């Protein structure tokens, strides 16, 4: 179930820096949501195909054609930190 430790673990997985107190808060709130979800166990779903795209849409592929509508400059302009046209981030290794 969703205890405080799980909340902290999940937050780490989601890269969200949360305090112990926040974890407790989320735990209480989310436990209620999950409790509400428990009533789904009474629904029989054996052999039911999961539904993802909810309306009948035909599979579509685009032709293999190149089109470049923005420049590197326009792309990199959005970045908080860059060096030349490259994204700059703290050291990975």
């Amino acid at each position, binding site marked *: 179930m969703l205890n405080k430790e799980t909340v902290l673990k*999940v937050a*780490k997985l*989601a890269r969200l820096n949360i305090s112990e107190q926040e974890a407790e808060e989320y735990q209480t709130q989310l436990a209620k949501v999950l409790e509400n979800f428990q*009533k789904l166990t009474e*629904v029989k779903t054996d052999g039911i195909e999961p539904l993802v*795209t909810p309306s009948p849409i*035909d599979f579509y592929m685009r032709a293999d054609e190149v089109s470049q509508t923005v420049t590197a400059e326009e792309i990199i302009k959005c970045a908080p*930190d860059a060096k030349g046209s490259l994204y700059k981030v703290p050291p990975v290794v």
Partner: protein
Amino acid sequence: MDLGKASLRDISTAVKGKAISAKEVTNFFQQRIEKLNKKFNAFVTLNESAQKEAEAVDLKIQKGQDPGFLAGVPVGVKDLFCTKGLRTTAASKILANFVPPYTATCVQRLQDQGAIVLGKTNMDEFAMGSSNETSNFGTCHNPWNTDYVAGGSSGGSAAAVAAGLVPATLGSDTGGSIRQPAAFCGLAGVKPTYGRISRYGMIAFASSLDQAGPMARTVDDCAFLLDAMCGHDAKDSTTSARPWEKLAAQKNLKSYKFKVGLPKEYFEHNIEESVKKAFWDTIENLKKQGVEFVDIQLPHTPYAVPVYYMVATSEASSNLSRYDGIRYGFRAEPPAKDWASLDELYSVTRAQGFGDEVKRRIILGTFALSTGYYDAYYSKASKVRRLIQNDFIEAFKNCDLIMGPVTTSPAFKTSTRINDPIQMYLNDIFTTSINLAGLPAMTVPVGLNSQGLPVGVQIMAPHFAEAAMLSLAQGIEDVSDMKGKVPHGV
């Protein structure tokens, strides 16, 4: 022509006929925004190029070129839709400074028909909320009574139209985010079939549920915007290739020749008296016009909200992973001189950049998809989702359309529900199953309750049956008490 109350049809006709210029129309609404926006907090960013764009429309007309069927029509666009060169934030701090180098397809299509984007409208952060109270820009207020919420998540889009700041707006609906604020603000609002309008450039909340749609005072106004936006887009492979039959071109969309289903499960809930009364009064009115009603069953209705929250949060947790402070948007300041690690940059940036509700949902969604829980939560929810859709498919064998309330109550007071997620989530009880099933649905305003707050009804239709839905909506509009009513002081 009273521009403040004019229809899109009237505005575009006047502009095309040179009775008024697009620039004058733009000026008129810009002045209204300047004067009134503070009171409602409906617009969060204004388009400084609007005048210039209006001039371009006027120039086209002068040259005898076709300016499009929305010539000079001012629109507000939910801050969820990317607009090239115009700040787009999803009402989140994490995108506070984001200026996209591209425009959402649906916005582009409005512009291609001559519409002028006046600015971006307020919303719940990343469309996560039902009251527009999770916005980084603050709460948006209901023009009918500013102590009340405008609804959410497209609260700004609803308030802007209700306050007459703009004749029509673009909203998005993931679990009711167009229909609920439309109901709270006395507007018509359409959530089309999933796949009717391109999602390209619409910031994703839950990809399999999100759908853009129009919000306006009348059904006809909504039809105009739909005509511009619907149809396949090569940039979104989840759009349908089905042709969209132009609705606004039809002079008389109105029809009562329908068999309408009434789902008994919808009335087993605790619905506020004024909502109930408005709904049954409407049914009586429609019966008089010849509409036939049948009782139908949607047995999986009680599961819609939990299924919705599981699916929506799971997809959202994934969709929001891209906000990491690397390529765009907000990056937090390092706590020490330098970041201890890349993960620290991610975690601190995301913790500071996202609001509470968003974080809550990311955590829930991440949990639901994590190893050991996937089958019990996400997978289970996706299967029940199919059963919910099957309910509708079955029901539509016996009726053309379905009607029900939009919400259990009219607009509620600000700050009354924000701290109780469950209470807030249950607010979506009549709207979420539509998104889960991918069906079109809309709100039609039917009147004001004793407190002067608007009440609306909801029409639901089979996949791609928007034409029938709007026809009945037009019929309801014609017999409703709402016509011509505007909030005091606007």
